[in-house]
């Protein structure tokens, strides 16, 4: 690629180009917060669906920090993160839910939670028979964490355990914020 090519490419707005809107995010995060990201050296073996989606029970796990309005919210002020997670009833609607967050824009999610946590879209797909069912609860946590080892040990392990043993999910949709 020539310097001219690079100049032309950088002049194209990524919103029109269809490329990642914040390029170099991985590098930026690691420069500003070294050691904060969980690293994997290799791929985990891929699990396969045991039955068609239309017969499978799905759960939704999100780092958007959404919760029922009646629940106390997670702590978005703590400089290291909040290592708890919330259960969000999969029957809940937009008006039942709220997001407290610092580190990502949620103005649009405040208007329509499905922008970041597509709970009502999944309910509809279930009613239409495209999905076998939803777990009684979905899961949400705060994505900001400065302690990857503690995060794996608490949030990740806790949600994995709940999803498998309590909720008996067949598959999971993972949605970062």
């Amino acid at each position, binding site marked *: 690629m020539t310097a001219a090519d690079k100049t032309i490419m950088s002049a194209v707005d990524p919103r029109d180009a*269809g490329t990642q809107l914040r*390029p*170099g995010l*991985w590098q930026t995060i690691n420069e500003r917060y070294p050691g904060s990201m969980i690293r994997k050296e290799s791929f985990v073996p*891929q699990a396969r669906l045991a039955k068609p989606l239309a017969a499978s029970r799905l759960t939704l796990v999100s780092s958007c920090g959404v919760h029922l309005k009646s629940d106390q919210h997670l702590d978005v002020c703590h400089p290291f993160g909040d290592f708890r997670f919330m259960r969000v009833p999969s029957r809940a609607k937009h008006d039942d839910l709220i997001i407290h967050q610092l580190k990502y824009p949620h103005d649009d999610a405040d208007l329509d939670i499905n922008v970041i946590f*597509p709970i009502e*879209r999944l309910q509809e797909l279930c009613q239409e028979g*495209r*999905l076998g069912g939803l777990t009684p609860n979905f899961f949400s946590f705060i994505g900001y964490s400065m302690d990857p080892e503690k995060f794996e040990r608490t949030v990740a392990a806790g949600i994995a355990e709940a999803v498998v043993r309590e909720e008996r999910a067949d598959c999971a949709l993972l*949605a970062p914020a």
Partner: protein
Amino acid sequence: MPTVSVTVARDVTEAIKVPRALFLPWPMGHHFGVPFQRDLQRRVVLAALGMLETSDEPGTILDLPIKWADVRREAKTLTEQGRKL
């Protein structure tokens, strides 16, 4: 357990080696689209869930190349028409 992620940060997703992911060239906080645009939100969800049935190779990232400028343009039109889907 089979999982599928939705991402707007392709480089982060590649680095952490998820089993399968759907990439959208959209901003943070908008992984499934814009408010009240039910059809687009469904499309994203279905594209992601479809990967649970079709994706074979670990680390597969499927692009859904819907430009953010187009999403926003349509959202603006819907708002101006006063429609809530």
